[in-house]
């Protein structure tokens, strides 16, 4: 099917990164963050929960970012917060995809009353202010990082379902899918062979952008005390703590806030760049 001169996937990947510096930097930053998360125990200079008498100390050789109100090393807490953050974002987007993908495909493929009902449910769910709904669901499931991120995932699912539904409808009416149906291909096979591969590109773009949204939601919920529970470190929770002694030590709130900002920026930049690359209208023209 592919054109004779089509470059390999690896080549295309490299040329994409070369053409988009912002995406390359974002990807490098996220890979670094990911390795930091895996190696947090090795890389962090101190334990994230070890307290000392050296409280709210300014940065020095032993504590590069100083210490917090309990004398804990801020840099180590920041590094140990990274796996929490990534776990939270991936869990929320995973739950959202696990619900949104099948529901969207089912509504789009089956059509009729199934589609009508699903569409109304999606409309209703999208009317809820997302963080408020996530807080309500967290309250019901029980407070904690995993439950709050499942809640965020549930809140993400209607948006993803709507996107997949539209993609499914577009592909379903293509001639070759009609042909496959006429030749007696089973619906599950049609979905697997034709619909999923074609719907997956806008889905990947959306998922990348949602990782940023999930990260910000985790920060908000942990800031509000509904996510990560102490003494486990998370960037949102570090911000909540630093706010308590802001008048004495205002510089404590910069590091966790910047960490959240940079990571959200990186996910967004990657998503936008992927959208430009994967956009089918641009692909067909080259």
């Amino acid at each position: 099917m592919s054109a004779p001169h089509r470059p390999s996937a690896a080549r295309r990947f490299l040329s994409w990164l070369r053409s988009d510096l912002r995406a390359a930097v974002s990807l490098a930053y996220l890979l670094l963050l990911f390795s930091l998360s895996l190696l947090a125990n090795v890389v962090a200079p101190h334990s994230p929960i070890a307290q000392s008498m050296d409280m709210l100390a300014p940065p020095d050789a032993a504590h590069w970012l100083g210490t917090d109100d309990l004398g804990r090393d801020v840099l180590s807490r920041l590094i140990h917060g990274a796996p929490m953050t990534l776990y939270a974002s991936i869990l929320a987007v995973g739950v959202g995809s696990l619900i949104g993908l099948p529901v969207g495909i089912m509504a789009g493929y089956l059509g009729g009353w199934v589609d009508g009902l699903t569409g109304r449910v999606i409309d209703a769910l999208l009317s809820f202010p997302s963080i408020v709904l996530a807080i309500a669901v967290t309250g019901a499931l029980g407070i904690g990082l995993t439950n709050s991120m499942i809640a965020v995932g549930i809140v993400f699912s209607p948006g993803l379902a709507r996107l997949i539904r539209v993609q499914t409808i577009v592909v379903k009416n293509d001639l070759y899918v009609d042909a496959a149906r006429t030749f007696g291909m089973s619906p599950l096979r049609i979905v697997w062979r034709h619909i999923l591969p074609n719907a997956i590109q806008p889905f990947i773009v959306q998922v990348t952008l949602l990782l940023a949204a999930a990260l910000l939601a985790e920060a908000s919920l942990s800031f509000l005390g509904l996510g990560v529970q102490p003494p486990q470190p998370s960037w949102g929770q570090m911000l909540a703590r630093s706010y308590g002694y802001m008048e004495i030590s205002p510089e404590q709130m910069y590091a966790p806030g910047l960490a959240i900002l940079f990571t959200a920026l990186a996910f967004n930049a990657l998503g936008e760049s992927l959208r430009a690359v994967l956009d089918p209208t641009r692909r067909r023209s080259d």
Partner: protein
Amino acid sequence: MTRRQALVIGSRLVQVVPVVILATVVIFGLLQLVPGDPAAVIAGEYATAERIAGIRHMLGLDRPLWEQYAVWLGHAVQGDLSTSLITGQPVLDEVLRRLPNTLLITVLALVLAVLVGVPLGILAATRVDGPVDRVVTTIASLGVAVPNFWLGMILVGFFALGLGWFPTTGAASLTQDPLRALSHAALPALALATGGIAEITRQLRSALIEVLSSQYVRTLHAKGLSQARILWQHGLKNVSLTLLTVIGLVFNRALGATVAIEAVFAIPGTGSLVVASATNKDFPVVQGVVFVLVLIVIGLNLMIDLLYALLDPRVNRR
């Protein structure tokens, strides 16, 4: 109003009914997410069997599910959103008492977002790929990615604690002391507006770029119309519908994001109420806040839909 417009408005009004009903099902269903016996979870670890039975009866958990829903909905329609498990006060009273504080900062944030976002979007779209456009799109990317409660903390540090221009925390009634209320609301609204500014700028920019590069605008250029006149007479008229849609989205997000903002500024609004009651497992209050907020969003979306029906030339001309 044309007959066609009346028909469109009528059908929008009818379409909103199932959305409201499904929203109530979702809110009612929240209690079903509680693992195990909700009454035991609400009563707490050391509750007696009588207390658990009492809560179960008060919430109607001893009845069949559909009956629980029917009773709950029947009460809700009459404005009875049950009572708080902790204070024993009617939920609706508490929500309505706090709602003005929340609405003040969200509406103010929305106004700020429009006032800043619209000019920025126009500025960027009329100078695509130039230095001004790059600066504006960078600001917009930052606005989407910045945690707004963190921005709120920085604003407090700088303008309230540092310069002393604004009060650090709290709120005041807009009707009793408008000036004090606005000075309390200024920083939270500013922090809340960043996401909206970014969203409006981006959407308006791309919508305007699309209109300005279209065939008929090229024709207008060829006819000798000035850039400014094309922009005002054709560009903005076309993107006003985009703006209307974005405003609905931005308001919905602000109502969510205000929760963390209210925590930063210690504002007694609906956001701080929902956090406190979710933490304390005061589910009737959680359900009540969510119910009132979702009705406000659905109401605003309905208004936007109706405006659409009045403004959209495709609806008018036929």
